[in-house]
């Protein structure tokens, strides 16, 4: 490997020897192509024509009135496929094509990354397999169906709690046996090097667009940028545009699940301890001996016991702050955004909105907050219906 892939002491590539050659190949290819003229042109063209970028930055007037400060939504829910995941799958999918790979595999939690990968598989004519936990298959059945419509094979993963962590385990195992022709299209800015770097790069369009758009709209930078954090790809994507703007507060919101006190949550940065999982050193939810905890969250996409390594460093240096929102707060926020703005947010992204609601009355009316609305909530309607049945 040419680079160590460390963010401070976090990250690295703690993987079985058999995966090293293929990670080396990926690292080499990424640094060869990411500034290659053809690659850049093709990516820019498809980002625009296929994914629908740039996405709008929208001033949410009625939601702002409710919380008492100015809220702008970065509309990643409008990216083709319904979430920011499409930015990364397009980038990595093209990388796979330039590398001459013919098969894609991916893990998915909520199904957004799986769907985005299935779409890219169709776009590029590649055979695509999506690993998905059985719990997630059940709670995100619409996305499963969409993936299949796009021609992907969805492989149910029964291990553990049948969630994102288990899907990554099996995708890694499958990759180990098929390293020669298969490209692992990893969905989050986590996992072994070079994935955190690659995913951040392909998601950094969120941050650079947002910075330009807010300057155009209000002539100044926001006071705060808020994003939900599971593995952390949408958050690192939008944070990346503001890392050097020291006056812009960066807030990551993790899944508080039932509650932090109950232990049934997925708030790795807020409550975890440094450990090693899925190839990276990072904050991890684990028992005293290092067995990884089972996590719980109303949002499948945040239901993950570790987190991307760069977020760990941002936490330690204090550049970003990380908090948690519990399921009930999230469901409140979901309903509120629907009612105030006519926008159905993904339950993942809704964690960021829940944090904003918790700041009601605490920030002055001139405060400008940008939220990364990383995905749309169509996939979550049945979950919300189960928790909050509609009254006649």
């Amino acid at each position, binding site marked *: 490997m040419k680079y160590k892939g460390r963010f401070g002491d976090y990250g690295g590539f*703690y993987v079985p*020897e058999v995966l090293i*050659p293929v990670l080396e190949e990926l690292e080499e290819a990424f640094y060869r192509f990411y500034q290659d003229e053809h690659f850049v042109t093709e990516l820019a063209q498809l980002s625009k024509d296929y994914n629908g970028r740039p996405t709008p930055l929208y001033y949410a007037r009625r939601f702002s009135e409710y919380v008492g400060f100015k809220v702008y939504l970065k509309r990643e829910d409008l990216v083709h496929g319904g979430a920011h995941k499409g930015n990364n799958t397009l980038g990595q999918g093209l990388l796979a094509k330039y590398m001459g790979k013919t098969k894609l595999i991916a893990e998915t939690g909520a199904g957004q990354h799986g769907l985005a990968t299935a779409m890219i598989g169709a776009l590029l004519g590649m055979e695509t397999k999506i690993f998905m936990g059985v719990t997630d298959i059940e709670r995100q059945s619409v996305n499963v169906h969409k993936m299949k419509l796009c021609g992907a094979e969805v492989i149910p993963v029964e291990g553990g709690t049948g969630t994102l962590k288990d899907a990554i385990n099996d995708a890694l*195992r499958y990759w180990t*046996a098929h390293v020669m022709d298969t490209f692992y299209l990893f969905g989050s800015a986590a996992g072994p090097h070079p994935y955190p770097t690659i995913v951040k790069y392909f998601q950094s369009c969120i941050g650079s667009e947002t910075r330009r758009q807010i300057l155009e709209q209000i002539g100044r930078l926001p006071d705060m940028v808020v994003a939900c954090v599971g593995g952390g790809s949408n958050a690192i994507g939008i944070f990346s545009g503001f890392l050097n703007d020291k006056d812009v507060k960066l807030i990551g919101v993790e899944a508080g699940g039932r509650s932090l006190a109950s232990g049934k949550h997925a708030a790795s940065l807020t409550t975890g301890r440094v450990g090693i999982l899925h190839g990276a050193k990072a904050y991890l939810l*684990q028992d005293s*001996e290092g*067995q990884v905890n089972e996590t719980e969250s109303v949002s499948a996409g945040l239901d993950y016991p570790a987190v991307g390594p760069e977020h760990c460093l941002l936490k330690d240096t204090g550049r970003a702050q990380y908090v948690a929102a519990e399921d009930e707060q999230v469901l409140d926020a979901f309903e509120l955004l629907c009612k105030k703005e006519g926008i159905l947010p993904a339950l993942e992204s809704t964690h960021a909105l829940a944090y904003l609601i918790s700041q009601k009355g605490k920030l002055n009316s001139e405060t400008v907050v940008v939220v990364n609305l990383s995905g749309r909530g169509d996939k979550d309607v049945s979950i919300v219906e189960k928790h909050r049945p509609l009254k006649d």
Partner: protein
Amino acid sequence: MKTYEQVFSELNRTALIPFFVIGDPDFDTSLAIVKTAVDSGADILELGIPFSDPIADGPTIQKADIRAMKSGIKVKKTLEFIRKIKDYKDIPIGLLMYYNLIYQYGVERFFVDFHQAGVNSVLVADMSIDDADEIIPSAKSAGLDTVFIVTPNTSPERMKLIVSKTTGFIYTVSLLGVTGSRSELSGMVEELISKLKKLTDIPVCVGFGISCAEHAAAIARAGADGVIIGSKIVELIEHNLGNHEKMLAEISSFITEVKNALRIHSNL
């Protein structure tokens, strides 16, 4: 304490190295299983400490890990297990496990404690040679051998690097993939063994996918110094969870059969 070096120099045939997950399906049964393996002719033991997310393992070992953890096996408890085996017979023991358990225990203390209990080496499944210096100094100062993995896709330069940091034996993976029994050998293994043999005198042991006496004999013919058999034996545990007597009998006869195949090969 018996070393790998002693075992390999005393044997005039390929060593038989069965793998078990400590505590599968529970502490006492697991102890009886491993003692049976020792009695049946194991030359070295490869033991796993169960982990919640074993990414290098196929379904058979994953299930064994779950059984062991459900029965209440803790990392500390595996020390007691290893001491009991060593009290039964002085046989070299290699651990095969995942890094987070060592990291949480404390790297230095882990190697000291497990060496004292009777472990000869610790192979970390999710650590490549690139990060090996996080553990080598602690392993060496505690007096352990440092075993690392070579796979069929390891480049010649990496192979040299791995060999230079390895003592005891080289753990050679016979295929591209995770652990698990297979109906046939991969065909990549002969070339890999001969490459390693040209590079070093360190014994070469082959694991992953070796599932019967014929496989073991073929590996021996290819020049390996040891065969490691895991999933196939763990399957015998899984298939006989309701009948411990039958479980022990089948494990004993399987190990005896493999051992005989290795003996016959060496007499040819």
